[in-house]
């Protein structure tokens, strides 16, 4: 071997140099990388923002059916632009269902048919999807099943409104469309929102979202807080420009041409204002009793980790009784609870040990500065304590891995769209309405193994699923029950099991980071 006359001092110097570079790299990563990880970039509002916990929490009004009969209830909704005062002193233009944000809440019973007639008076085509609904494909709000506004010239077959693809199977209607929901499913809180091809994210951002409850006898049999002790909370982040209008980095703000957002926001659009039921950081007066919170994260990309903290610093447990698709078998107690876009939780919170006058902050541990707050509860009078049931529902499906007809690996990751632009892909492919990605047989049980590169809240239409595992370990404590959306963290994977029953037809599964969804991260699920 050649002479290696290296002085000890030099060797030491080289070793120290490499060590310093390695340590420096890790230190740089520790300082620069987002800890905890966050997928998306935050817009900064240009108006003075209101003080937290000063605006009362609005409760969305419950819609009245225009007709009710043996064959169900019929509702009419108008999709219309309106103005509302979200930030005090500013009128903000919104796209709404029936002029309110959130839209009117629909209350329904399991198995009782609901028809919602939607009339589109907005300047762009729309599509309504009932998230979590067990809905026939014709009413599931497929992204190209457009409802065109009056006078809209183009048709689906001829590049409707700048959409990147044509779809011969699309069922396009003019101005008005009846959506039919059999609602043969467990009691839970669903939500309806716009689902138009390429423009879902900005449409939801502008206000097209509302709640839809399903009730059943299993829920009725339980002694749970009711009436004004059951509070729906739609959490959504937004940002406002200098005029008090909603800021959103669309490439085409008319939402008719080029889809997508400006480059810094490709991973997701985050706002710096946290709205609950459309009000910034609201406060809600409660008594010192037990409350049921029906929480939805209707944000496009923001994840929250919720915790309830009294002004004494004491943390109140959040007792989970339900997931996306209804009640759990038994309550699960959480100190903190992560919630990804489109996920729902059914929670009980007990204020009974708190003195009147206490304020309880619903905080977001993933937030910084103002986004660390969500809302507050103000205990203003004495209430009656109520026990938390020890068992809840016994009607959860129990699927066994051994029954799975198919096991699929499905990867959600960044990549290039067909036009070379940055996008988000499922198994390496951007969404194409004309390609069937997964064919499932009606009645088959399947195991899907989902793998993510960054945060991807993965949502399946039509069915609920159970979470079998995360990575190499079991499910998390918040994974209990029946889900329709599962939040994957960067590098994380999970196994889910479901049975495809209900209806045949063309459905979707997709990432519910709404920006990812618009930029390719959807795939067709054909139930045959």
């Amino acid at each position, binding site marked *: *071997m*050649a*002479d*290696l*006359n*290296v*002085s*000890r*001092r030099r*060797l030491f110097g080289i070793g120290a140099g*490499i060590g310093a570079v*390695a340590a420096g*790299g*890790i230190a*740089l*990563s*520790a300082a620069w*990388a*987002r*800890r905890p*990880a966050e997928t998306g970039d935050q817009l900064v509002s240009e108006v003075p923002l209101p003080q937290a916990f000063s605006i009362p929490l609005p409760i969305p009004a419950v819609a009245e059916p225009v007709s009710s009969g043996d064959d169900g209830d019929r509702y009419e909704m108008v999709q219309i632009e309106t103005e509302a005062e979200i930030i005090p002193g500013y009128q903000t233009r919104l796209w709404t269902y029936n002029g309110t944000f959130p839209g009117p809440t629909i209350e329904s019973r399991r198995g009782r048919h609901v028809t919602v007639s939607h009339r589109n008076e907005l300047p762009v085509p729309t599509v309504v999807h009932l998230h979590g609904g067990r809905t026939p494909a014709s009413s599931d709000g497929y992204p190209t099943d457009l409802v065109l506004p009056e006078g809209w010239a183009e048709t689906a077959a001829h590049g409707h409104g700048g959409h990147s693809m044509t779809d011969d199977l699309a069922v396009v209607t003019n101005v008005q469309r009846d959506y039919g929901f059999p609602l043969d499913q467990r009691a839970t809180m669903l939500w309806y929102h716009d689902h138009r091809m390429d423009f879902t994210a900005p449409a939801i951002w502008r206000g097209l979202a509302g709640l839809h409850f399903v009730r059943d006898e299993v829920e009725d049999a339980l002694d749970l807080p009711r009436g004004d002790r059951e509070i729906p909370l739609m959490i959504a982040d937004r940002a406002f420009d200098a005029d008090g209008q909603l800021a959103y980095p669309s490439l085409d703000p008319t939402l008719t041409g080029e889809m997508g957002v400006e480059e810094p926001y490709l991973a997701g659009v985050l706002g710096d204002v946290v709205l609950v039921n459309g009000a910034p950081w609201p406060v809600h007066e409660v008594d010192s009793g037990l409350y049921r919170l029906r929480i939805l994260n209707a944000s496009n990309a923001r994840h929250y980790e919720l915790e309830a903290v009294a002004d004494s610093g004491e943390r109140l447990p959040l007792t989970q009784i339900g997931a996306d698709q209804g009640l759990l078998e038994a309550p699960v107690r959480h100190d903190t609870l992560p919630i990804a876009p489109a996920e729902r939780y059914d929670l009980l919170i007990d204020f009974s040990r708190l003195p009147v006058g206490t304020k309880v902050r619903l905080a977001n541990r993933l937030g910084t500065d103002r986004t660390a707050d969500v809302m507050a509860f103000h205990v203003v009078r004495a209430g009656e304590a109520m026990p938390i049931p020890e068992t809840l529902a016994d009607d959860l499906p129990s699927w066994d891995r051994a029954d799975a007809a198919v096991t699929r*690996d*499905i*990867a959600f*990751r960044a990549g290039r769209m067909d036009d070379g632009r940055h996008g988000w892909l499922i*198994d*390496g492919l951007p969404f194409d309405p004309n390609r069937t990605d997964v064919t499932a047989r009606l009645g088959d049980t399947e195991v899907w*193994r989902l*793998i993510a*590169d960054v945060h991807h809240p993965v949502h399946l239409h039509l069915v609920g699923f159970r979470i079998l595992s995360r*990575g*190499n370990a079991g499910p998390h404590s918040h994974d209990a029950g029946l889900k329709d959306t599962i939040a994957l*963290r*960067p*590098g*994380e*994977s999970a*196994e889910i099991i479901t049975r495809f029953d209900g209806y045949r037809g063309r459905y979707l599964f997709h990432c519910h980071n709404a920006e990812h969804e618009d930029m390719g991260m959807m795939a067709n699920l054909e139930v045959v």
Partner: protein
Amino acid sequence: METLEAVDTAAPPGRGPGVRTAVSGWVLRVAAALFLIGGYLQPVFAGVYLSGDFDGLAMHLMGADTLSVISIAQVGAAVAVWIRVRRAWPFWASLALMLGGVAQYFAGMDGALWLHLPLGVTLIAGITVVTAALWMRPLPRRVKGARTDG
């Protein structure tokens, strides 16, 4: 100035205790070589996993478990080398790699990618350098009175 020189050329291999690598040295070299091979397989498994093959994660975990065992074995062999060969640096280097591996393991299990990725690259570099150094020069058993500085 004192130098560390390659002594392979001092005498033909296999002659005399001052030249031939001791048994403990060979155990250490083999452990380091296995550590190197396993180390380079880990990013392969990670890539397979992130490309969408769920089984890649199980392989990545199996690799991590195997590497943990090898790194402990390597530290054991390095202790023997310290005693028999009177060289301390392989022990400290192996210990550092083992501790780095523990941190890497938990960073991975915790999903702390900000640490897992740069630390993984650092560990690969460290394993490479240490393995090369171990194989570059013989690790002969020292007789009494031989140099102990190494």
